[in-house]
Every structure is written in structure tokens, then in C-alpha cells.
């Protein structure tokens, strides 16, 4: 048994063997189920991505309008209320919010699957909402500061001096400029959603990579932990690339270069 698992060789030798396998798409096998780690990941990665994307959309759907309104009504009751909500959003532990929502909707009102799990949209909506809430606080804060930054620019004043309608000034000129930092920062924060997803998958029994990782940690299934951690590193790199791409795409200075 020890021989088959390779436990008789020193750890660093095993690590480099594993690393060599990684480049050939071989992440090793779980010593509990004997299933290839790559198979587990391939099965679970799409579910985690599905959850993260839905959560990301929720965070933008909640956070973006909140931040815009706060910026437009700067230093008024509306602004303070919106930012209070945002601060509340970042202060709630999302796993607790998940449990409470399970109780309210699943148990008390009996509207959805209380035990969680994986399936149709009724399984996705609560975990995605919870995942999105935490990030929406951050989203609305950075939207607000990006909008405030842009709204004080000279070209906004110039747009008003042209006699443009206020909604054109805000939603065409200000928002399109603010979109550059907002999109970049949002994509840079995307990895935080992956972190949140681990916890949320556990709360809602969502069979993604996070749940697999927690189970692996509890059973000391090291190759599974290693493989999933590696997968998260890849996701982080992709998120950073998305941030760079969105920056270049939204900013004409990069898109068209300097012609002078």
C-alpha cells in the first residue's frame, strides 16, 4: 500500500513528480476514492464557475446602481443610506446569511430546496445571491468613488456646457469613463468570489470545487487539495488577464495607441 502511493519516497521528490505530471495533465489520484484528481476537477469546475458568475452578476446588479445613485446624490441622505447598506453588506458573514436565507425561504416559507444541492435555477439563486451580496458592498463603494472622480472632471463640465441632457452626461459620458476603473477593479476582485464560493458551496451543499476541497482537507486527501488549489491559481490568473483585457478594451489610449 505505502509503495503504491509512493509514500516511501521523500516529500520533495514526490512534489516534483507531481509537478512533472501536472504538465501532462495528470494531477494524481485521490488516495480515498482512487479517482483521478483531474476528473474530479473537470466535473466540478463548471459548477463553481457557474456559481461564481451568477454571484458576480448579482454583485454588479446590486452594487452598480447603488454606487451610481450614491455618487449622484453625494453627501445627501440617499448617499449615506446607500453607503450604509454597502457597509452592512461587507459586514455580514456570507455563510451566516446563507443559513438564515435557507431558514427563511427553505424551511419557514417552504419556497425552495432547503437542503441545497445542485440542479436547476432554484438551487442556484440563493447561493448566488449570498455570494453577490458580500461583493456588492465593495462594488458599490468603488463605483461611487470612480463616478465621483469622473463627475468632477472638466469634460463633464464641458458636456454640460454643450447643453446635453443630464442623463446623457451621467450615463453616456460619466459612466463610460468610470467603467474603465470599475471593470478593472471588479475583475481584479473576482478571485475574492472564488474564496467566498468555498464557504457558500459548503453552506448550500453545492458540489463544486470548494466543497471538494473542504472534504479533501478533512480527509487529508493532499493530492486533491493540491490540484484544486492549483486550479484556483489558474482562475486567479485568468481573472487578472480579464482585468487587463477590459482595461485595454475600454480605454481608447490603449486600444488605438498614440498616433502622434
Amino acid at each position: 500500500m505505502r509503495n503504491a502511493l509512493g509514500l516511501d519516497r521523500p516529500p520533495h521528490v514526490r512534489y516534483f513528480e507531481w509537478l512533472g505530471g501536472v504538465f501532462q495533465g495528470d494531477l494524481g489520484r485521490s488516495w480515498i476514492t482512487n479517482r483521478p484528481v483531474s476528473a474530479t476537477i473537470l466535473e466540478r469546475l463548471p459548477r463553481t464557475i457557474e456559481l461564481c458568475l451568477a454571484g458576480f452578476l448579482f454583485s454588479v446588479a446590486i452594487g452598480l446602481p447603488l454606487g451610481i445613485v450614491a455618487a449622484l446624490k453625494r453627501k445627501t441622505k440617499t448617499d449615506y443610506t446607500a453607503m450604509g447598506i454597502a457597509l452592512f453588506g461587507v459586514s455580514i458573514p456570507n455563510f451566516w446569511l446563507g443559513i438564515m436565507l435557507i431558514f427563511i425561504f427553505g424551511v419557514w416559507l417552504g419556497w425552495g430546496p432547503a437542503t441545497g444541492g445542485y440542479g436547476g435555477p432554484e438551487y442556484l439563486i440563493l447561493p448566488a445571491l449570498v455570494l453577490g451580496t458580500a461583493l456588492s458592498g465593495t462594488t458599490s463603494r468603488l463605483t461611487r468613488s470612480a463616478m465621483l472622480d469622473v463627475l468632477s472632471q472638466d469634460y463633464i463640465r464641458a458636456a454640460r456646457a454643450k447643453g446635453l441632457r443630464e442623463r446623457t452626461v451621467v450615463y453616456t459620458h460619466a459612466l463610460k469613463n468610470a467603467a474603465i476603473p470599475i471593470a478593472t477593479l471588479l475583475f481584479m476582485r473576482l478571485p475574492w468570489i472564488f474564496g467566498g464560493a468555498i464557504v457558500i458551496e459548503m453552506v448550500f451543499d453545492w458540489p463544486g470545487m470548494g466543497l471538494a476541497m473542504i472534504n479533501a482537507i478533512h480527509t487529508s486527501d493532499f493530492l486533491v487539495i493540491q490540484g484544486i488549489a492549483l486550479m484556483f491559481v489558474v482562475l486567479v490568473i485568468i481573472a487578472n488577464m480579464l482585468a487587463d483585457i477590459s482595461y485595454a478594451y475600454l480605454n481608447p489610449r490603449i486600444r488605438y495607441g498614440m498616433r502622434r
Partner: protein
Amino acid sequence: MSVVEKGRKVGLSISGYFRKLARSPAWTYLKRDERAWIGFALVILVVGTAIFADFIAPYGINDRLIEEAPFARPPGGAFILGTDSQGRDVFSRVIQGTRIALEIGLLLVALEAVIGVPLGLMAGYYGGKVDELVMRAVDVALSFPGLVLAAAFIGFFGSGLNNLIIALSLTGWAAFARITRAQALTIKEQPYVESARAIGEKDRTIISKYILPNGISPLIVIATMTLPAAILLASALNFMGLGVQEPTPAWGAMLTGARSEVLDGIWWTALFPGVAIIITVLGFNFLGDALRDALDPRLREYKYV
């Protein structure tokens, strides 16, 4: 000689910093900020609870107070927040959990500062290769989700309080390093630092006597804003069973079992530890936000969460 004296005047002690702060406009601004008052009140409440936990909690944290099933009784009577599935008093456990939460949070922030501040000082003060190396590490640490790395670390090295704190500090130090570096960069160009250098003070003296004390405002802000984030992250790891274990009444760990208990309609074991987390985190977040706006409006982009 006069230049030197001027330089000495600006190099100040930590206590001198607070004396200076009390007379500054930032203080006036802070006093007028409602968030500061709300945050301050909540923080006092939480810290007070932690200090006097033994007096407030009516029962021991592991006393089994219910003799027969059902052990989990709803709030009311002798148990104002009810009892959990093992017949223990939820109120006492939540109260005692305050101490654990603050302990974890403070230790973690302290460790992050101990790692991050010297690295930031070195990067900012010396620049060049050191700076490049430190900042590269900062970028990696900041872009990586702390929870994933911490979970993986614990997966390999085991759970428990110490590993929990070490695991979370792996990414958390970066915020301190970045802020300190930015401060060191501006302060080292100040005339009083140049005059200190001109009279032949050692680098170490310059850093500890001039740069650190004069750049401390943002550090206080970052520490205040990092603390609630640290408490949240730690509670998530505790919830996943990767940190402090049962029967220690850590709020996150208390929620682990609550997840399945709500399915049986037992909501009070889930509700109250969460409320305790929210009160604590909200208090420090309010205070941190108010401090940030009062001390240094430029810090806004460095929001940690």
C-alpha cells in the same frame, strides 16, 4: 545647527503622535462624524463584553443545562437566547465567543503588521531591487483569495488557532506593506529626513525615528479596517471546521452545526452568533471608515475587503 534641531522636532515618539493628533483638524472632523460615534459605541460594547465576559455569562460554556430531550430549547425563561443541541446556553457561549473573536483578530492584525510594515519600510526606503521584489510579492498576495490559500495551508499543516492565524497572514500582510511603502516613499523626501541623513544618522535610526512615527496615521486606519475583515475570514474558516474546534465557543464554529439545525426549525443557534459577528465587524468598519476619512482621504482606494 538649526536644521538639525528642526529635524529633531519632527522625529517624534508614538505617544507624541497621539498628543499631536488630539490637537489636529482630523480630530475635530472625527468628532463630528456620526459613523465614528456609532463605530466607537459598538467597539466599546464589544471590547467591554470581551473583558467582562466571565461576569456577563450566566453559565459555563460547556455546562449541559438541559437534562432531557429536546436539548435545544428556544429563547425564553432562564435561557434568553435559548440552548443548543447539547443543552448548552447560547447566550453564555456567544458572550465568551467575543473574547475569541477579538483575540484572533488582534493577533492576526499584529502578525500582518509585523510582517508587512518592515517589508514596506524597506521597499520604500531603499527602493530598487528590494522594492521590486517586495512589491511583486504584494501583488501576488493581494490578487490571491486569502480564504483559498488559507484553506490549502490548513489542509497541509492542520487546523487550530495558530495555523489559522498563520494561514490568514499569508496574504493579509500585503495591505500593510503597500501602505507603509507609500508612506516611506513620501516621507523620505521630506527635508527633515534629508537633514537627518546629512548629519549622518544611521538608516535604522532614520526609519524608526522619523519615517515610522510620521507615517503612522494610515497604518492605524489600515489596522482598524483590517481587523473586521480578519474576524470575518477567521469566522469563515472556523465555520468550515478549519480553525478553532468545538467545544471552543468561536462564533464561526458555533454556526457549523447550526447549518443542519435550521432544517429542524432550530433558528436561534444560527441567528445569535451571526448577529454577534455583524455587531463586531460593523463597529470596526464604521470606525475604520470614519478614521480613514478624517486622517487621510487619499486612502480610500485601499479598501481591504
